């Protein structure tokens, strides 16, 4: 990239290296991993979130996810962009599902490819940790005797 005397930190153009998806359809693990494939990659770190069968010992019937889509997409993109600028990564994919999910189904898949594994591991963890803090997606647990929006109350 051309160096300019007034800019000490040059932003890479990372538009093509980021794949963000929000969908009611079942996620496809192979497809997400393919999104980050590159012959420059030495390692790909993948996080797969899954719906647990119980919360604090209480059986869960299913989860329901909803999202404020425009902001969810832009916030997921922001997380990926920040990581692409900060760490030596090749590609990032973040796919999140919304709607009704059964036990064992997959609400989120994150894949990060890098030349070397250290950056991929770090980015993958940061990605899911930050998504859980900033992305406007909400999950509701459905029990046999009621429904609870996760984390809504202290």
């Amino acid at each position, binding site marked *: 990239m051309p160096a300019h005397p007034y800019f000490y930190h040059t932003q890479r153009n990372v538009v093509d290296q980021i794949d963000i998806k929000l969908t009611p359809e079942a996620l496809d693990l192979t497809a997400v991993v393919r999104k980050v494939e590159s012959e420059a990659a030495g390692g790909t770190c993948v996080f797969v979130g899954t719906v647990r069968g119980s919360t604090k010992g209480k059986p869960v019937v299913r989860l329901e996810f909803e999202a*404020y889509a425009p902001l969810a997409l832009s916030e997921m993109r922001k997380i990926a962009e920040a990581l692409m600028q900060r760490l030596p990564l090749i590609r990032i994919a973040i796919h999140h599902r919304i709607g009704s999910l059964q036990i064992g189904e997959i*609400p989120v898949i994150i894949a990060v490819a890098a030349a070397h594994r250290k950056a991929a591991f770090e980015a993958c963890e940061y990605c899911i940790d930050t998504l*859980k803090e900033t992305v*406007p*997606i909400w999950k509701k647990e459905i029990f046999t005797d009621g429904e609870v929006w*996760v984390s809504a109350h202290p």
Partner: protein
Amino acid sequence: MKLKLLAFGIAKDILHDRTIEYDLRSGTTIAMLRDALCADYPEFRRLTSISFAVNDEYVSETHVLQDGDEVVLIPPVSGG
């Protein structure tokens, strides 16, 4: 000035609706809107937090609202 509020998650349950209109005086900030919501719907006080977005960006407490703004109510998020 008229605001359109768009509610998600538990906020939608509290308002019993996805969208509602609010009529507030001009110069109203997010902090003032939050106070009005908590006064009209005390259940909002029980939430761990509530954030707001305008024009698809998070906004701070001091953000000044304009007539016709669409404000998104963002209760504690729980994605992933």
